[in-house]
Every structure is written in structure tokens, then in C-alpha cells.
């Protein structure tokens, strides 16, 4: 018995329908393309309105300052804050560092305990790890199978030395929304500050710092169709008044919390991006949710053994994270090389470890290696979604024909019972 499989050659691919430009970008959790309206708002601030917002004595400075203050206002409106509570930074990594290190230093007298979750972004996790070296105690909450933290775990973890809880709003890999309003309520009741890395959530789903009892919140422009290198940290000014130590010292910009000449064009872009997001959120969220469901249904109608990673109920509208059993993620990405998505496979990371987020959900390493993250965004169309679904399906089918695991599973062998001889 000998079987031969003819490989699908490039010519046998699903052809791209008219009007679709390849490659298709569907990795909007990594970054988003700029919205032309954002670019348009920014352009004057490179050349004609180039002033330093800190120059107090001439119109060049005043013009720049005015633009910065307008952006501050736009951001504040989106999140229910006041303009004075918005501190500009270089992006979310800096905002996370400033929030966590800034609180840790400022409240050291009060306590040394910080609570976070295992599925946080590295900007939070590695910041917490560094603080552990300096004598802080960090609790890394586990997550449940759906990716959400258990609020009872959180309540139990808070003690009289706890100064900060930092838990993200939406996860960057699986798009799962943490119950930030409930977390905020618990923190407020227990007198602990609450920081949330809301980079993926802001502008996509409603989030209100007052209603939701958020004390500090990280934001970045490039996830909401703005430029890279511009971000903000919301810092609550009353009930309670939050104080943070600076991590960058210098000219005392941003009321001493973040020195450094302001990136005026970037800030204008961030402001415009938040204004557009606020205007279009409801409609756009519904559209993205529809496209996401369409993608999922089209894939799952054709392929078996496809698993969804993370809660579908508590999820960003544009996110879909699927594991395709018996197919390794990087080889799948290679097969759909006219589509930009990402994988939780080890082979796509520098560490050779599969996604720690998927592992935290209890997804086996084998399925973590088989995962693909789709991030649908403002500029994706229905036709693109259909094309991506078809390309994924045909590539998975081809790779499964190539997969010894698929063959074994079809023979009725339980892969968990096999004694694997690793290298």
C-alpha cells in the first residue's frame, strides 16, 4: 500500500476576486494602518506648525500647545476623563512602565504588593518582574479556560500591603475582555489602585474611567489607526488623587510626570484617532463583529477540528483566535503568504516557546503551536474575509494531508497515548 499526494501548487490557489489587493492585512492587533483622516490632521505639525509646545513666548509654541491641548481633550472625551488627567508618552509600553513603576515608587510606604494576571502583555509582566528584583511582591493571577480572571481569586489576593492591581482590558492575542468594571469596583472598595492596559480596548469597546473605577489607563495611537510612537497614560486626579513618580526626568513636562519635548504631530494624530473612534465605535464594532463571525463560520463549516481560543462572549469584535489541529502555525502562515496574520506557534517567536497566553488557558502546547490570530480592522472588507477564509481552509487541508498526526488521528490512534521520542 502506497499513497501519493499531489501537492497543491501555486496555480491551484483560490484566485483573488476583483477589487482585492494582495497581500491582505488582517493583523490589526499588532498595529493598524493609519487612517488618512488622521494623517491629514497631523501633516501641518511637521512643517508649518513645527513649534515646541513648551515654548511659552511666541506663537510657534502657542500653536503647538493649542494642538496638544485639543488632543488631550479628545482623548479625555473618549474615556470619560478630564483633559488634565491625560499624560502623553511614547506609547503603551512606556505608559505601562510609568503607571506600574510610578505607583510602586510613590506608594512604597503604603505597601509593596502588586497583583497582575499571567496573560498580560510583556510590558506589564516584565515591569512587574523587575520590581520583584527591587523587593516588591507580585501575584500573577491565573485565568480560567475562557481567558478571564476569577474575581474571587482577585479578592483573595488583595492584602493590606497591596498597592496596585494591573489587569488589561482586552488581550492582544485572544481579544478576551476582562471584567474591568468589576475589577475596578473591587479595587475601589479595598482601597487599592487599579491600572489597566487598555491598548486593544480603547476606541473599540466603550470604556469609562469613572463608571468603571479605573485609576490609571494605558493608551496608544497605533492600535486605533493613528501613528506609532504616540501614547498616553490616564492618571486619576480626584477620588482618589493618584500620584506617580516619574521614570523619565528632565524639563518637567506633563506636570513633572513625563519629561521630554512633546511629539506634537504624534499627539495630534492620537487625538484625531480617538475622536474618530468615538464617533464610529458603535457602528464599526457591529460591522467588525459581523465580519469576525462570518470568518469563523466560513472556516468552521469547511474544516473539522478547529478550536476557538478564549471566550467568544467577552471578546473584541475584530478578534478571532483559532487552533487548527494537526497543522503547525508557521507552516500555515507560509501557505497563506498573501495574508498577514500571526501565530502563537513557537516557530514564530524568538523564544521557541509557544504562546504563554494560550498555555495559560490550558490549551495544550500542540494546539498552541497550531494557533492563528486574525485581527480584523477598519479597512477590511467582506470580500477579504471570504478570501482569507478560503485560503486558510485550502492550506489547512493541504498541510493535514502532509501531517503524520492527522493520518494517525484518522487511523483512530489517540495522540495522547503515543510515546513521543522528542529530540
Amino acid at each position, binding site marked *: *500500500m*502506497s*499513497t*501519493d*499526494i499531489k*501537492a497543491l*501548487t*501555486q496555480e491551484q490557489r483560490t484566485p483573488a476576486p476583483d477589487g482585492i489587493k494582495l497581500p491582505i492585512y488582517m493583523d490589526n492587533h499588532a498595529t493598524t494602518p493609519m487612517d488618512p483622516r488622521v494623517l491629514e490632521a497631523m501633516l501641518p505639525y511637521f512643517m508649518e506648525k513645527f513649534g515646541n509646545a513648551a515654548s511659552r513666548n511666541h506663537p510657534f509654541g502657542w500653536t503647538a500647545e493649542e494642538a496638544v491641548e485639543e488632543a488631550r481633550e479628545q482623548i479625555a472625551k473618549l474615556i470619560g476623563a478630564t483633559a488634565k488627567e491625560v499624560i502623553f508618552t511614547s506609547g503603551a509600553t512606556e505608559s505601562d512602565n510609568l503607571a506600574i513603576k510610578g505607583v510602586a515608587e510613590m506608594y512604597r510606604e503604603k505597601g509593596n504588593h502588586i497583583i497582575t494576571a499571567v496573560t498580560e502583555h510583556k510590558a506589564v509582566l516584565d515591569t512587574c518582574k523587575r520590581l520583584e528584583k527591587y523587593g516588591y511582591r507580585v501575584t500573577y493571577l491565573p485565568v480560567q479556560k475562557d481567558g478571564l480572571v476569577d474575581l474571587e481569586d482577585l479578592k483573595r489576593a488583595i492584602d493590606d500591603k497591596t498597592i496596585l492591581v494591573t489587569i488589561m482590558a482586552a488581550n492582544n492575542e485572544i481579544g478576551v475582555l476582562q471584567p474591568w468594571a468589576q475589577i475596578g469596583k473591587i479595587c475601589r472598595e479595598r482601597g487599592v489602585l487599579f491600572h489597566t492596559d487598555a491598548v486593544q480596548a480603547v476606541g473599540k469597546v466603550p470604556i469609562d474611567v469613572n463608571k468603571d473605577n479605573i485609576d490609571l489607563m494605558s493608551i496608544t495611537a497605533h492600535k486605533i489607526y493613528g501613528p506609532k510612537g504616540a501614547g498616553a497614560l490616564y492618571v486619576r486626579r480626584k477620588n482618589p488623587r493618584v500620584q506617580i513618580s516619574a521614570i523619565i526626568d528632565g524639563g518637567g513636562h506633563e506636570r513633572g510626570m513625563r519629561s521630554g519635548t512633546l511629539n506634537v504631530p504624534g499627539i495630534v494624530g492620537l487625538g484625531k484617532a480617538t475622536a474618530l473612534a468615538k464617533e464610529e465605535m458603535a457602528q464599526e464594532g457591529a460591522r467588525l463583529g459581523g465580519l469576525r463571525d462570518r470568518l469563523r463560520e466560513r472556516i468552521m463549516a469547511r474544516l473539522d477540528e478547529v478550536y476557538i481560543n478564549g471566550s467568544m462572549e467577552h471578546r473584541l469584535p475584530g478578534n478571532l483566535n483559532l487552533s487548527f489541529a*494537526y*497543522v*503547525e502555525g*508557521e*507552516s500555515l502562515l*507560509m*501557505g497563506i503568504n498573501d495574508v498577514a496574520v500571526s501565530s502563537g*506557534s*513557537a*516557530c*514564530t517567536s524568538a523564544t*521557541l516557546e*509557544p504562546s504563554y497566553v494560550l498555555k495559560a488557558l490550558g490549551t*495544550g*502546547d*500542540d494546539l498552541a*503551536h497550531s494557533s492563528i490570530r486574525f485581527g480584523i480592522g477598519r479597512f477590511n472588507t467582506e470580500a477579504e474575509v471570504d478570501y482569507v477564509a478560503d485560503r486558510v481552509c485550502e492550506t489547512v487541508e493541504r498541510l493535514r*494531508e*502532509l*501531517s*503524520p*498526526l*492527522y*493520518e*494517525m488521528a484518522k*487511523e483512530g*490512534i489517540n*495522540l495522547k497515548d*503515543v*510515546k*513521543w*521520542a*522528542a*529530540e
Partner: protein
Amino acid sequence: MAYSDKVLDHYSNPRNVGSLDKNSQNVGTGLVGAPECGDVMKLQIKVNPETQVIEDAKFKTFGCGSAIASSSLATEWVKGKTVEEALEIKNTEIVKELSLPPVKIHCSVLAEDAIRAAIHDWKKKKNGSAEQKAPATAGSQAGH
């Protein structure tokens, strides 16, 4: 990550994909790697008992493009060689042929392991006709 043209070629047009009858006396099966590690290769050889020449080779691989290319190349290389010659194939030659970057060297190691495991399985069958019953799993005694 950029792939070499040869990796892309083997990925798009893999050579010798498929399966041989694992119960045949003349077929050796190597199954190496583990799903948890993101790489599993099954490599099979069909050996002429008179000449010891590998007359056919097939593979199936779960793994990244470099793993698929390494095992595809391995089947090409072992075909027509005697068993002893095939044992001489080194992973470094696969690295060189496919221009694998350092992070992908383990793919070539796995391919070398798969060749050895397949030959080992065939030898065991040949020497031990007494213990003829076919294993319940994929017919593989992997690794070393």
C-alpha cells in the same frame, strides 16, 4: 522570517509525500519529535533485501516550513542510497543545502534522527523475524 528559495520550493512542492505499508518486512518507519514541541516527522524507507538499497522513501511532517523542507530533502537524499550510505547523511549537510538559519537547525537534526529511526526500525524487523507482530501505534520506534 525570510525563507530560502529551496525551503520555499520544498514547502510548495514537497517530494515523496505519503505513506508506505508499515507492516511490510522491507519497510522501516521512523517517527520522531513530539506534537508539544511543534515538530513531528514520519519518514519511511523501502529497502531491497538483496542489495540493501533504499528503493523508495516517503514522509509526512507536522512542523514549520523548514521542518517540512528538511524531511522532504531527506527522502530525496536517501533514495538510491544503501542503508549504510544513508546513515552517513549529516544534519549539517541539510542545513547547508537549505540555508537554514540557526533557529531552524533543530529541524535538520530531526530529519537526521528520522532517517536513523527508519533504518533502525527496518534493521530490527530484519533481525528479529521472531517478534513479528506489528506495533499498535504508527509502527515506529523512534529516536535513539
